[in-house]
């Protein structure tokens, strides 16, 4: 399972960096969206996987059982998903506004502030 997830994370990272290096601003934003998914999976995997175990205290228990999975990485991922959702919404709005005021989608033409 770890191997499969590791390969998935690697493919996601590679795809997101490829998209970020493209010239179109929209593709860059898609790359950032993929990047945040890759990071979420990375946290989830690095925190330790355990098949078929729950991350919460059952109805008859008073403490986490030894067989249960660590809930903290899941909490981290949940927080990260919420943050990346908000940030992505802002980024899309910003790209729309940038498209309105500059009239181009090409990063290479957004260089009047570089010189």
């Amino acid at each position, binding site marked *: 399972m770890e191997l499969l997830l590791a390969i998935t994370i690697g493919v996601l990272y590679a795809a997101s960096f490829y998209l970020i290096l493209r010239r179109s601003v929209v593709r860059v934003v898609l790359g950032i969206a993929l990047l945040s998914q*890759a990071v979420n999976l990375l*946290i989830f995997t*690095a925190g330790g996987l355990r098949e078929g175990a729950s991350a919460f205290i059952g109805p008859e228990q008073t403490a986490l059982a030894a067989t249960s999975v660590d809930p903290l990485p899941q909490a981290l991922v949940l927080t990260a998903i919420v*943050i990346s959702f908000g940030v992505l919404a802002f*980024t899309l709005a910003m790209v729309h506004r940038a498209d*309105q*005021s500059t009239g181009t989608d090409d990063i290479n033409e*957004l*260089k009047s*502030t570089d010189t």
Partner: protein
Amino acid sequence: MDPVTLSLLVPLVTAVLCVLGWRSSGLQRFLGVAGMAVLLGVALWLIAATAGGEILVVRFGNWPAPFGIVLVGDLTAAIMVLVSAIIGLAVAVYSLADIDAGRTRYGYYAFLHFMMLGVCGAFLTGDMFNMFVWFEVMLISSFVLMSLGGERPQMEGAVKYVVLNLISSSFFLAACGILYGQTGTLNMADLAVRAREYMQPELLTLTAMLFLVAFGLKAAVFPLFFWLPASYHTPPVAVSAVFAGLLTKVGVYALVRVFTLIFTADLVLTHGLLLAIAGLTMVTGVLGAVVQFDFRRLLSFHIVSQIGYMVLGLALFTPLALAGTVFYLFHHIVVKANLFLASGVAHRYSGTFDLKKLGGFYAATPFFALLFFIPAMSLGGIPPLSGFFAKFAIVKAGLAGDTMFGGWAVVLAVVALAVGLLTLFSMTKIWAEAFWKRAPGGHAPHPDRVPWGDRVLLLGPIAALALLTLAIGFFPGFFFAFAERAAAQLLEPQGYINAVLAP
């Protein structure tokens, strides 16, 4: 109530009140300034409470330390909160005359205070993941401040700023996840304990490199600084002043925090890398600045080169060098924000940021020329101004010979001196072009075109910050004593660890 919680509650409550009062620009302007003034009072209380070496710990929901999230107010954090509040107040007053009605109506003051919340939170938190959340609070507010108004240069700068900062955030988050996988904790004090007992320090160093990339991008060190000079000169002057003063320094603070508290297992590798980065940052930043002819772009490149000095102090890792870093942070935030505010006044008086078109300011307004001269010479390191003592501490630490780098520390000290000379050169370039040169046609300075009330609001904060620069320069011993105590706390983290993990 304790000052640690209050330094977060005050900007939060102010920001929420600003949002609630969105119909009234006057109310928002009043709240924007009043909130910063209250925050300054709280920050002074925080510094008074931590000056004797006490470490204030606040536990969220009273959960014991390694399990719950903690806020930790030690002297370094208190100093950073204080200087943020000073800059916040200066910029809020300046904004009254600089920010137009449209931006005020769309929530400028609310986002300014949300950003202060993120900045203070990042300084005070004692938990890695919580620091990530504060960074995001700070970033999303800064994204809005950067793009508010939607003018073409602003949007071009904002695209680069947003994309590169989001990539840095994802590095930060990945580093947090891997660090948790390795050590099973994210509490900084607990991390410090476990990192010292960790079986494979090489793997921890690998994680440290991820943090170095994440914080290095925020701090704009070589070779990750390209977004800064491409974006910092595009928003309104008040916004670029608060960005220039505070945001990169949050990255430097985070570097100082993790590379004194957690990643100290392989000092020669990590701090040697920081040493090389510091040298390259200083040199590339200042060389970039020397060729610029736009007022704010020139100052933006100087942010990069000055970051190099602060990282150099961290890399040398002696008590004097770290005290120099803390002192440098304080001095630099005040001076750099002030120079950006001054560039805005030059723009208001003459209508351009182009140094070739500016001119004649010394003849037209000698008082403003003096107000620019103080921070500019302080940045260049002329005694008896604050920058001299900041550079002196770092260079002396490099020449002292008690670092772990021997000859290389001396080389870097010499590089720091040469960069100081080039800094002085580009400050005199601004002075010669904008102030001494006769005004070329079309952009002669006209202070009388700006209403009297606006002039007070624009020049008041600049004069106050210039006075603070003079005060640091004339009483360096008083300020340096604080920096030395803060550095002692950073170098002996046992006090921090005990305070946080105490039952």
